[in-house]
Structure formats: structure tokens, C-alpha cells
């Protein structure tokens, strides 16, 4: 344990002694191949788990939804399926995203996984600025997604049905959702995208890795309407990783982004929103202001990381 702590919390470069490194293979290939292998394992496993849970839970609902309207039918189905979907998400992310990527790092690159992905201490100020920049970016990403939702004329009821999986009606459910939707992706997705893909690409591509990984992060979510906002978020989080050489601000930034979404969907039994997180119409000027604020905080992040920043290749 001491060995782990010492190794993980300091910004020391790991010893590259894995099979891929020993064979002096192309590092960029490793990044893309690792990403695709993990993606295949994760998506197939999640589809199978969701499918099984779907069939186990859906059989009882067929009788209930007979004769109901379309909205009532999908709303009821979603209510029945939201917990199985949450279980499948948590199981898939830990077992089929986190474990494969840890295995790939151990086998191909180094046994010092935490050191490779850079679980390293950072000053508190860096963490605070990263979280603040993410908070400011939420209205921007929200308005980008909203723009496409409006352009496509997606009806409100459909958006509400989709949001059910992230909606909580009690403090216990809220806590459970924080574990499922905030902590799990913050750890597992950050390990994959920043900890492995960006870290590995950075060794050969430097700053370009931030943009490439950000776009891949957007594409991987398979949500065409959120592609731009997710890619921008990916680039923002990637920049924190690039500057700080630590996964910690990325995990906190990702957690914050998802937490705000979950809190905004925390409701009472009477469908009253408990926390009014950005519960206002975002105007064009408001969006620009949020973007400028994010930009200012990113610049501040650049300034405060200047001293410790190492242009690390390798």
C-alpha cells in the first residue's frame, strides 16, 4: 500500500516495461487500439446486460401498459427500466471499461498503473479553478445541446422521458444516482479517455492529444445531438489533464458536470424541482458571458499551472 501511495501521489514518470513498450511498437497505435478494444468490450457487454435486465423486467409491464397512450406507455416502461439501466451502467463501467483499461496498461505499458494514468497530487487552487471552469461551462454546453434539440423539434415529453433515468425523488435515490451517474463515469471514463488515451497520445502528439481525445470523447457517447457539447467538455477536461499532468482535476471536473445535471433533476414527489441549477432561459448574451467566464478561468488555470507545467513527451 505504501508503495502504491508513494508511487501514485508523486508526479514521477513510470518505468515502461510492458510488452508493447519492450517491443518498441508504435505508441499512437496502442492508444487507438486500446480505445477500440475497450469500446468493443464495454458496448457489447453493456448491450447484453441491458438486454437481459430488460427482458427480466419488461414481461410484467406488458399487461399494465395495454390500452394506454403512447406517452404513458413509454413513460411507464422507462419507470420500470430506469433501475435496471442504472445497475447495468455501474456494472458495465467498472467491469468492462475500467478493468480492461487497467489490464491493457499493465500488459502493454507498465505495472505501475496509477503512475501511468497520473493519479497525482495537485495544489488545491488548481482543483478549485478546474471545477469553477466546468461549472461555468455547463450553461454553454447546455445551450449548444438545447439548440439542436430545438432545431429538431424534439417534444418536451420525450425529453422528460429520457431524463427519467437521471431524475431522483428522494435523498436516497439522489445519493444512489450520484454514485451511478457522477462518481462512476468520473472515475471510469476519465481513466479511459484522459488516463489512457490522452496520456498515451500525449507521448507522441503533445498538445494535439487534447483535441483528438476530446473529439473521441464526444463520439464515444453516441449522442449525435450532444456531440459538439460533449467534445468541447472533453477538450476542456483534457486541457486540465495536459496542464496539471494529473487525473485528479479531470475526475473532479467530470464529477461536477454530471452532478449539476443530477441536481437539476432532483424533484419532490409533486414534481417540484428542489435545486434550481441553471433553471433559467439561457440567452445568447448569457451564453457568451458564460463562455467568456470559462475562457477566463481556463486562462487562470494556464497561469497557475505555468510553474509546475512540464512539456512531457514520454
Amino acid at each position, binding site marked *: 500500500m505504501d508503495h502504491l501511495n508513494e508511487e501514485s501521489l508523486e508526479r514521477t514518470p513510470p518505468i515502461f516495461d510492458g*510488452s*508493447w513498450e519492450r*517491443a518498441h*511498437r*508504435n505508441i*499512437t*497505435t496502442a492508444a*487507438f*487500439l486500446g480505445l*477500440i*478494444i475497450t*469500446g*468493443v468490450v464495454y*458496448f457489447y457487454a453493456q448491450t447484453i446486460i441491458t438486454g437481459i435486465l430488460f427482458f427480466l423486467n419488461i414481461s410484467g409491464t406488458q399487461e399494465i401498459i395495454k390500452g394506454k*397512450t*403512447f*406517452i404513458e406507455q*413509454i413513460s411507464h416502461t422507462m419507470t420500470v427500466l430506469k433501475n435496471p439501466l442504472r445497475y447495468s451502467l455501474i456494472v458495465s463501467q467498472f467491469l468492462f471499461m475500467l478493468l480492461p483499461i487497467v489490464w491493457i496498461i499493465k500488459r502493454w505499458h507498465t505495472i505501475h498503473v496509477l503512475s501511468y494514468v497520473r493519479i497525482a497530487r495537485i495544489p488545491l487552487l488548481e482543483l478549485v479553478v478546474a471545477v469553477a471552469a466546468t461549472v461555468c461551462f455547463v450553461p454553454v454546453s447546455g445551450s449548444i445541446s438545447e439548440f439542436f434539440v430545438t*432545431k*429538431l*423539434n*424534439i*417534444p418536451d*415529453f*420525450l425529453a422528460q422521458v429520457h431524463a427519467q433515468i437521471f431524475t431522483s425523488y428522494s435523498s436516497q435515490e439522489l445519493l444512489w444516482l450520484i454514485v451511478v451517474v457522477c462518481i462512476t463515469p468520473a472515475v471510469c471514463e476519465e481513466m479511459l479517455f484522459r488516463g489512457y488515451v490522452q496520456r498515451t497520445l500525449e507521448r507522441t502528439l503533445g498538445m494535439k492529444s487534447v483535441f483528438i481525445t476530446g473529439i473521441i470523447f464526444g*463520439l*464515444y457517447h*453516441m449522442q*449525435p445531438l450532444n*456531440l459538439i457539447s460533449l467534445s468541447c467538455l472533453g477538450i476542456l477536461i483534457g486541457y486540465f489533464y495536459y496542464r496539471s499532468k494529473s487525473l485528479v482535476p479531470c475526475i473532479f471536473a467530470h464529477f461536477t458536470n454530471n452532478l449539476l445535471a443530477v441536481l437539476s433533476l432532483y424533484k419532490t414527489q409533486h414534481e417540484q424541482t428542489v435545486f434550481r441549477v441553471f433553471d433559467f432561459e439561457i440567452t445568447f448574451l448569457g451564453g457568451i458571458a458564460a463562455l467568456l467566464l470559462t475562457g477566463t478561468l481556463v486562462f487562470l488555470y494556464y497561469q497557475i499551472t505555468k510553474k509546475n507545467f512540464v512539456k512531457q513527451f514520454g
Partner: protein
Amino acid sequence: MNPPFPPLTLGDIFEKTFSLIGKTFFRNLCIAVLILLFPIILMAIATDDFYSSLADMKDTIHQVQSEPSLDMILPILSTLSFFLLATFVFALGVLFAEIAISIVVSREILSHPITFSDALSEMFNLKWLYGIGQAVLKYSIFIGGIIIIGIILAIFAALSKMLMGLMVVLCLLALIPVIVYIGLKWYFSLIAIAVDDLTVIESLRASWYLVEGYWWRTFGILLLLSILTQFAISIVSLPITFGSMWDVYKEYFTMLGKTGGNINPEMLKNLEKSFGPGIAIGSGISALLSLLVTPVYTVVLYYDLRARGNTGTTIQQNPAVVQDGSQEPIDLGQF
């Protein structure tokens, strides 16, 4: 001729494939776009026509409240034949692009890089004809086999219905592995034509013996590579496909909003009419992306298998290719 590299491990295959995709990307993209642009447009028009006439026929049947007559079916048949023709042109385009891309990749491996226009002119110098020939021969044999089995089944059906049921199950069980086995044995025939300038029969023979002794290995690697490739393609092509069907989705969601989710089939008719181009463009883009990867790993595997079976006979090549200096007569190993 010595193979360009020794037998490869799985890691080497991945590494070579990725590196070659990077090195040949723009040339391969030019080839794929130049060859597939017209077939994709044709497919979009044909699919649009087909879906529109299908929707019109349904509409007419609904209005007249009668069984479909010949007058109603004729427009469908004409759009269907146009659709089949467009599909055929598209398949030919994919075949030609695969040959030309394989030429580019193989020359890159042999350290004699060529431009995309040179690869195209080389492909149009008989190789395209051999490519069609091997495809026709392969599929004729498969279809012929299926027809023979069908005749046998019909004979059994005449004797007893129960016997026929049993035979159908047995034939299906036997047919699938046989098709997979032979299909894999002939998998490299197109690459043999593109890379080694072999004729139709020679290419099938070359591919057959190349896989000999390495069937399971080749099957496993190809399966793995195709799963990984398809996943990567689907990730990239999803937003493009979504974008190409934007109007259809918009119309659908507008209807959902107006009706509170209770859309009746009547309302979907207009939507059906606009399906076509989106589907064709989506599948065209997927095929285009696939062409940037699939021929690359197939050529790498081809050279790997040649390195593994490099023990003897030499097959004479087209002298033009030998004179060109880019390739020498190949040692086809166990052939």
C-alpha cells in the same frame, strides 16, 4: 521473392495495419471518393425512388380499398429494378476501390509507393476484369451449391414432408460451416489479383493454398479485426448518418409533438418517402470508411500468410509488372 516481412504476431499485424492506414490514408480516401461518389449518388436517387413508389402504392391501395393490381405493381417493379441496378453499380464500385487500395497498400509495404492515379490506372488495366471474374466464379459456386441442395430437398419433399424437414435442418447445419470454410479459403483471391497480378483461377488457387494450415488463425484474426473495425466505423459514421437523415427525424419529432405521441400509420407515409437518400448516404459513408481499413489489414494478412508458407513453387506473373521493377515473380509457397 522474399516476403517483405517475416511472419507477424498479432501485435505486429495491428501495428502494421495502423501505420499503413496512416501512410496511405489520403491516397485511399481519394480512390474511395472518386470511385464511390457516383454510385452513392445513384443509390440515393434509386432508394428515394423506391421508397416513394412504395409509399404511393400503399396510398393507392388504401384509397381504392382493393387488392394490388398490375398497374399498381409496375411502378414498384421499375423502381425496384433501378434500385437493384444501383446496388450492383455500388458493389462494383466497392470492388474496384478495394483493388486499387490494395495496390496502394501493397506498394507501400514493398517500399515502392505509388500515387492514387497510378493505382487507378493499374486497376483499370485488366485487374478490374479479373476482380469481377473471381467474384462471379465464387458466387456462382456458392449459389450453384445452394441450388443443388434445393433440388435434393425438393426430391425429399416429394418423398416425405417429415424427411424434408429433417434434411432442411441437416443441410443448414452443414451448409453454414462449409460456406464459411470455403469463403475464408478464397478470401484473399481479390488481393492476389491486385497485388500479384494473378488471373481468376490462379487467384482462387493461390488464396486457397495460402490459408492452408492457418485457417483457424486467419479466421480468428479476421473476426477480431472486423469486429474492431465495424465498431470504430459505427462510432464515426453515426453522426454523419444522423445528419443525413436530419429532415426525416425533424419531421418525425414534429409529428410526435403535434399528436402528443399518437402517430397513426397514415401520417408516416410522407416520412417513408424521404427515408431513401439518408439510408443510402449513411450506408455509402460506412462503406467508404470501411474501404480505408479493410483492404489494408487484408493485404497485411496476405503478406503474413505468404511469409508463413514460403517454401517452394513460383507462379509466373504478368511480365509488365516484373519489368516495372516494382515486383518480382512471387514465390507462392505451398501452391
